C-alpha cells in the first residue's frame, strides 16, 4: 500500500469516526453555536439561543438513536471514547433532559444580561456528562469530569446578584475541586500500575498489583465519581447547592451529574476490577444502603421542598446504585440502572417543574406554599402527585418499574438484603413525599400572597412533557426496557 492509499484509508476511518461521534458533535455544536449566536443576537432575541440549544440537544438524542439503529456499537478514537449501548442510551437521556431544562430555565433567565451564555454553558455541561458516560480512558474521565464541574459551578452561580447562589456555586466549586483532585490522584495510581490510561489495560494490570494500593486508588476514584452522584458520604454539598442555585439549574444538577457519575462508575468498576475482585460489588452495595438510608432519614425533617427533593435525590442515588452493585452478579444490573436513570430523569424534572411553577407564583418553595394547590392549579397538582408517587415507586409510574428492575437485579445478584433495605427505605420515604402531596390535594386554598404569574408556555411544555414521560415510561415500559436491555457494556468481559 502506498502512502496515498494509507492516508486515504485513514481519512475514511476518521470520517466514519465522525459519524459515530455525531451525537457528541451535536452537543459541541450546541455549545459553540450558542456562544456565537449569543454574540450576534440582540438581547431581546436571546430566547432564540435557547431554542437552538434545545434543538441541538434533541438532535443529539436523535443522532444517538440513529447511530444505535444504523451502526451498532464500537469504540473509537483509539479506544478513548466507547460508543456502546450504554453511552448512546445515556446521550439520549441527557439530550431530552437538556431540552426540557432549557424550557424550564427560559422564564427564569429571560431578560438577564447573559442569557445566551447560560444556554451555552448548559450545553457544555451536557457535553461533558455525555463524554464522561462514554469514556474508556481515565485521562478522558478526568478531563470530562473537570469540564462538567466547571460548567456546573457557572450554572449554579448564574444569578450573580443572589448571595445564596454565590454560596452555592462556591460550595460546589470547593467540594468539587477536592473530590476531583482525589479522583485524579487515584487515577494516577492506576496509570502507574498499568502503564496505560486505557481502562481495558488497567483491568488487566490491577489483579496483579499490590492489594493495598489498588484499594486506596479505587476508593479515591469512587470519591470523585460518588461526589458527582451525591453518594453518602460525599453528598454534603447537595442540599445547599440545590437550594441556592437557580431552580432550573437545580433541576438539571439533580439529573446531569448524577447520571454521568453513576454511569462512569458502572463503566469503570467492572472494567478496572473484573470479576468483582476485592469485593467491590459488596462495598458498593453497602454504599448504596447507607446512601438511601441517610438520604431518606434526612429528607424527613425538611420543610423546604427543594431541600426535600435534594435529600430525595440522594436517596434515589442509593436506589440507582443498586444497579451498579448488581452488575457483577446479574445480567439485569446494567439494564436496571439505565431504565431507572431515564425514569428518574423524567420524574425528577417533572417534580422540579412543579416546584418551579409554584415558586414563581408564590415566591416560596416551602411546604406551606403548596397548601391548597389542588384548588388553584389542578393540572400542576396532578403533575405533582404523579411525580412524587413515581419517586416513591408506586405503580404504574416510571419510578415503580425502575424499582422493580433494581430489586430484581439485586435479588438475582444475591443481594436480597439490599432489596430489603430498599423496601424499608421506601416506607420511610412515604412520609416526606406525602408531606407535600397531602396539603396540596387536601388543604383548602391558601390566601393569595404573591402576584400570580402564569406559567409561560415553555415552562408548561416542560412540565407536561416530563409528567407524560413519567406516566408513559411506566405504563408503556417496553420500548425503554428493550433499549435498556440492549445497553451492553463494551470492553467488559
Amino acid at each position, binding site marked *: 500500500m502506498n502512502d496515498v492509499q494509507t492516508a486515504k484509508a485513514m481519512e475514511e476511518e476518521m470520517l466514519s469516526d465522525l459519524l459515530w461521534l455525531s451525537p457528541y458533535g451535536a452537543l459541541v455544536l450546541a455549545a459553540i453555536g450558542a456562544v456565537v449566536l449569543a454574540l450576534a443576537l440582540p438581547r431581546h432575541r436571546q430566547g432564540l439561543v435557547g431554542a437552538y440549544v434545545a434543538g441541538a440537544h434533541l438532535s443529539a438524542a436523535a443522532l444517538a438513536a440513529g447511530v444505535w439503529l444504523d451502526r451498532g456499537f464500537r469504540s473509537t478514537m483509539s479506544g478513548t471514547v466507547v460508543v456502546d449501548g450504554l453511552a448512546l442510551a445515556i446521550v439520549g437521556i441527557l439530550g431530552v433532559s437538556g431540552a426540557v431544562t432549557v424550557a424550564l430555565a427560559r422564564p427564569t433567565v429571560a431578560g438577564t444580561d447573559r442569557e445566551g451564555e447560560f444556554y451555552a454553558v448548559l450545553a457544555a455541561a451536557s457535553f461533558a456528562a455525555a463524554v464522561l458516560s462514554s469514556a474508556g480512558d481515565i485521562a478522558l474521565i478526568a478531563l470530562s469530569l473537570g469540564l462538567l464541574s466547571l460548567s456546573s459551578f457557572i450554572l449554579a452561580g448564574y444569578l450573580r446578584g443572589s448571595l445564596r447562589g454565590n454560596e452555592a456555586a462556591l460550595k460546589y466549586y470547593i467540594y468539587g475541586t477536592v473530590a476531583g483532585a482525589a479522583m485524579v490522584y487515584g487515577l494516577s495510581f492506576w496509570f502507574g500500575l498499568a502503564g496505560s490510561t486505557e481502562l481495558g489495560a488497567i483491568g488487566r494490570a490491577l489483579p496483579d498489583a499490590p492489594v493495598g494500593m489498588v484499594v486506596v486508588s479505587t476508593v479515591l476514584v469512587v470519591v470523585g465519581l460518588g461526589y458527582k452522584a451525591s453518594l453518602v458520604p460525599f453528598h454534603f454539598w447537595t442540599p445547599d447547592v440545590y437550594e441556592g442555585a437557580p431552580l432550573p439549574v437545580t433541576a438539571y444538577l439533580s439529573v446531569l451529574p448524577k447520571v454521568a457519575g453513576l454511569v462512569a462508575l458502572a463503566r469503570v468498576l467492572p472494567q478496572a476490577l473484573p470479576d468483582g475482585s476485592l469485593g467491590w460489588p459488596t462495598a458498593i452495595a453497602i454504599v448504596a444502603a447507607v446512601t438511601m438510608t441517610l438520604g431518606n432519614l434526612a429528607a424527613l425533617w425538611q420543610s423546604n421542598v427543594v431541600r426535600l427533593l435534594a435529600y430525595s435525590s440522594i436517596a434515589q442515588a442509593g436506589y440507582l446504585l443498586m444497579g451498579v452493585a448488581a452488575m457483577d452478579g446479574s445480567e439485569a444490573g446494567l439494564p436496571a440502572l439505565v431504565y431507572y436513570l431515564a425514569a428518574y430523569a423524567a420524574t425528577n424534572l417533572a417534580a422540579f417543574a412543579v416546584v418551579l411553577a409554584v415558586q414563581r407564583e408564590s415566591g416560596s418553595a416551602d411546604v406551606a406554599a403548596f397548601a391548597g394547590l389542588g384548588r388553584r392549579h389542578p393540572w400542576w397538582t396532578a403533575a405533582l402527585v404523579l411525580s412524587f408517587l413515581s419517586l416513591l415507586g408506586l405503580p404504574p409510574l416510571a419510578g415503580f418499574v425502575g424499582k422493580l428492575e433494581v430489586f430484581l437485579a439485586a435479588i438475582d445478584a444475591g443481594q436480597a438484603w439490599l432489596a*430489603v433495605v430498599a423496601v424499608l427505605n421506601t*416506607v420511610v420515604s412515604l412520609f416526606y413525599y406525602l408531606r407535600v402531596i397531602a396539603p396540596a390535594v387536601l388543604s383548602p386554598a391558601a390566601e393569595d400572597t404573591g402576584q400570580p404569574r402564569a406559567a409561560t408556555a415553555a415552562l408548561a411544555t416542560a412540565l407536561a412533557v416530563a409528567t407524560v414521560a413519567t406516566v408513559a415510561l411506566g405504563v408503556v415500559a417496553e420500548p425503554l*426496557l428493550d433499549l435498556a436491555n440492549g445497553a451492553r457494556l463494551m470492553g467488559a468481559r
Partner: protein
Amino acid sequence: MPWLTLAVSVPLLAAALVAVLPARMTAAPRAVALGASVLALACMAVTWARFDAGRGMQLVEEATWIPSLDISWRLAVDGMSLALCALTVVLFVLAVIHGVGPKPMTRAAAALLLLLEGATLAFFLAQDFFLFYVAFDVTLVAMYFLIALWGEENRRYAALKFFLYTLVGSLPVLLGIIALFLAAEPNTFNMMRLAEQEPLAGAGVGASFVFLAFFVGFAIKTPVVPFHTWLPAAHVEAPTAGSVLLAGVLLKMGTYGLVRVNLQMLPDAFAEYALPVALLGVVSALYGALVALAQTDLKRLIAYTSINHMGYVIVGVAAAAAGGISAEARELAIDGAVLQMVAHGVVTAALFFLAGFIQTRARTRDLGLLNGLIRPMPVYGTLVAVAFFASLGLPGLAQFPAELQIFLGVFDVWPAVAAVTVIGIVITAGLFLLALQRAFLGETSEQWRGLTDVRGRELAAVVPLIVLTVALGVFPRLVLDVINSGSWL
C-alpha cells in the same frame, strides 16, 4: 367480546373522562360514574353466564404488554375470582348511588371511585403478577384519597395510617413476586404458570421467606391480628361509601391473595406454617369479637367484627393448606372461606351504610346515647335487625352457611381449633343483641322522636344488600356452585 377487559377498562376510561369534564356540568360526574359501574356490572353478569363452573381458570384474555419481562395483560376467572368480582361490581354500583363527599358528586369523587373499581376488578382478575401488583397499589392510592378528602374529623391521620400499613404490606409482596419470577424456569410473571409449576416446591428456607413475605403483606390487608391497627382508624374515619368499599371489597384482597398465591403457588411452605397461621386466625376472630364487645361507636363495632369475620376466613384457608386434610374437607373449607368473603362483603357493606344513615340523622353513632330508634324509624330498625342477625351468623342469612362450611372443614384437621373458633360466634351474637337492645328497643328519648326514616337513595343503596343477604342465606348454592373450589385448587 373481551368482557373481562371491558369490565376493567370501562371504569378506568370513565375515570379519565370524568377528570376532564368541564366543571359546569354538575350532574355529569355522578351520571358517568353510575353508567360506568352499571356497565361493569353488566360485563360481569355476561361473564357469570359464560362461566363453566367445572373448568377451573377460564375465559383467558391475553395481550402482550412488556415482553422484555414476559409481562402480559392477562385476565381470567375461576370461581373465586368471579365470586369476588361479582361482589365488587354490585358494591360499586351501590356506593355510587349513595355517593361520596359533597352533593352533587364532584369530578374528583367520581374519578376516584371509578379508578378504585377498575383497579379492584383488575386485581381479582389478574393472572399476571405485574398487573396484580399494579392493581394492588392503585387501589391503595385511590382509597387513600377517598378517606383523606371526604372522611371524618381525623381523616388525614387515618388515611396516612392506611397508606403506610398497606405500603408496608405491599412491598414484601413485591419482593415475593420477584423471588417467584426468578425461581420460575423460564422466568415469568404468569400466575397461571406459576401456580402450575410451583417453582419453590419443597425448597426449604428460601420458600419460607417468600411465603412469609406474601403472608405479611396479605395479613396486613386482611387484617390479621397483630397487623390490624390501621383498620379501626380507617373504617371509622372513612366516608360511608369508603367504609363500605374498604370493608366490603378491599379487605378481601388480603384473603384472596392468601389463597391465590400462598395456597396455590407455595403449598409446601404453607403446609409447614398452616397451624401457626390458623392460630393467628383464631386469635383474630376472638380478639375482634372481644374488642367489638367493648365498643359503643357503631362504626367501630362493625370494624372490629370485620376482624372477627375475616379471622374465620384465615382459619379456613389455613386448614385447607394443612397436610392432613381430606379432599372433601379441603373443598368445604375453601368454598366456605370464599363464600364467607362474599357474605361478609354484602353484610358489612349493609352495616356500614346503615351506620352512616344514623350518623347523618342523629349526628352520633354512640350506642350509649341512642335508644328506642325502632319507633321513629321502623324500616331502618328492621333493616338493621336483619343485618345484625346476618352478621352474628343466624341460619337462613348469608354468613351462616359460609361459617358452617369453614367450621366443618377445619374440624377435619384440628377439632380443637374449630371448637375454640366457635366461641367467636357466641361473643358476636351477644354483642349484636346487646347493641340492638340498647339502641333500638326501650324508651325513645325526646331528642330521637323526630328522626325521619330511611328513604330514597338510602333505600336504593341498602335494600339490594339485604335482599342478597337473605338470598345467600337461603340459597347459598347460587354462589357455591360457581365457587366450586374443587375445580381449580
